[in-house]
């Protein structure tokens, strides 16, 4: 029953679910609680039942040394949490906030014309998630782990999807 094309019979499904999302959604690399951590927060999207907890460990200079998470939710939210954990490593709080702002714009609009040049690299990594902009109710799946992370950085205990 699957359509038989030479290249990729799932081309039509891949505009949102790129390989990296499927992969990270299935086997996240950062999907665990940190043994030792400095901050943690939960995120909750009551509309769809997605839930995530994020743990953060800082380096001595205040930069993020490590991030781990535990998520219950769809592939998008888990992949997003995983890519987030990877891209925020080594960033300080204000850098991380700037990155979230850029990511959020991309998730909502599909592009990020105002992205600072300095963010080109991490944004490249996060780009596979840009397809959510076409599915407005899924945008929150992608941003929920970020809300939890920012809450952790702020010392707040809980975040809710916007």
């Amino acid at each position, binding site marked *: *029953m699957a359509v038989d094309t030479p290249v990729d019979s*799932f081309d*039509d*499904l891949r505009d949102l679910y790129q390989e990296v999302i499927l992969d990270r959604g299935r086997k996240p690399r950062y999907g665990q609680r940190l043994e030792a951590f400095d901050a943690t927060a939960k995120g909750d999207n009551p509309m*769809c*039942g997605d839930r995530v907890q994020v743990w953060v460990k800082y380096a001595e200079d205040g930069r993020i040394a490590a991030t781990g998470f535990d998520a219950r*939710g*769809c*592939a998008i939210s888990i992949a997003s949490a995983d890519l987030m954990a990877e891209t925020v490593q080594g960033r300080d709080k204000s850098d991380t906030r700037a990155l979230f702002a850029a990511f959020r714009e991309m998730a909502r609009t599909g592009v990020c014309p105002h992205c600072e040049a300095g963010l080109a690299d991490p944004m490249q990594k996060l780009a596979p998630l840009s397809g959510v902009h076409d599915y407005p109710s899924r945008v929150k799946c992608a941003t929920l782990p970020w809300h939890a992370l920012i809450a952790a950085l702020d010392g707040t205990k809980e975040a809710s999807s916007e």
Partner: protein
Amino acid sequence: MSKPATFDVARIRQDFPILTQTVRGKPLVFLDSAASAQKPRVVIDAMRNAMETQYANIHRGLHWMSERTTEAYEAVRDAIAVLMNASDRHEIVLTQSVTGSLNLMAHSYGRGVLQPGQAVVISGMEHHSNIVPWQMLRDERGIELRVAPITDAGELDLAGFEALFADGKVGLVSITHMSNVLGSVTPAERIVQIAHAHGAKVLFDGSQAVVHRRIDVQALGCDFYAWTGHKLYGPTGIGVLWGRRELLERMPPFLGGGDMISSVSYEKSTWAEVPHKFEAGTPPILEGIGLKAAIDYVQSIGYDAIAEHERALVDRALAKLSAIEGVTIIGRAQDRGGVVSFTLDKAHAHDVATLLDRQGIAVRAGHHCAEPLMRRLNLDSTARASFGIYTTLEEIDVLADALTRVREFFK
């Protein structure tokens, strides 16, 4: 399964303009009718026609436009009375939605007739709209809320239900007539027998049931029956509450305002007769006119044909979906309507819904406004395909094929 000569789904589909739309480049396969049904042209035309040729505020106007609009609006009350086999058109109360009807009951019957210390029974498979109003009543008035258990198959556990009446405290049962998640139809006559044997009244949330089968409130023997217009191919913004006249007359009004009064002075106001006592403010005039057209349309097709068509759809869906590796059907009730919930082993229901949408197929995913039921089933969410009179067997096949692709994609 043979279809009655009168039921021609291809012809019916021509009555629904939206069905020719494409979504993401694919023909629309709309399997979300349990959330809200699409509207036939007769409904669209009735509302348009009212606004273009015959509209004014109703009931108190003495002029031609008002008289004619009053007639057109009040006709929906007669149509509903016939649809439900109510014996008296004054027993039909029009509200904003079934949520409005259930809140009316929780306020007017719950606070005005039930007494603290009494109990209300709901079931383990209610929509939030039939849970939260009773919770609010419980927390405010000390009226106990009891939950009748359901079986693993998703049917009402009748023994467990009956046990709730043992102490004689139950004053009202407010229970779904058909689950919007599992498709299960509850044994309405038995529920009424048991409740009445213990002196309790029965209110059915028939939001789903009325779409799928003929409702006869006199045969059911129940006391109240509520449903919502937009699921029966009518517009949003209108709901129905049927109640026995002597009970409605005992209930205090709920919302105050124009149209529900007999006379107003600062010291004391007196109330209009039922049903107007419960209908405050300008009613849903255009919505009533639209719902009348929807009811006429459903009646012209007939519930026998509708039920038979749906049985065929459900049978096909259960057979086809069960055959897909990794798919689990949620809810295996014997008596069921055109709603099928399922989960897929390798993918979250939201991902399933999005990937089906990518193929033009609209299903719902989530807790379906029934979180306690999800908890009972140990699930966070399900995907749900639900059918209307315009759904075809071919669309079920399209769903099954697409779902097979999704499963391969996630493998």
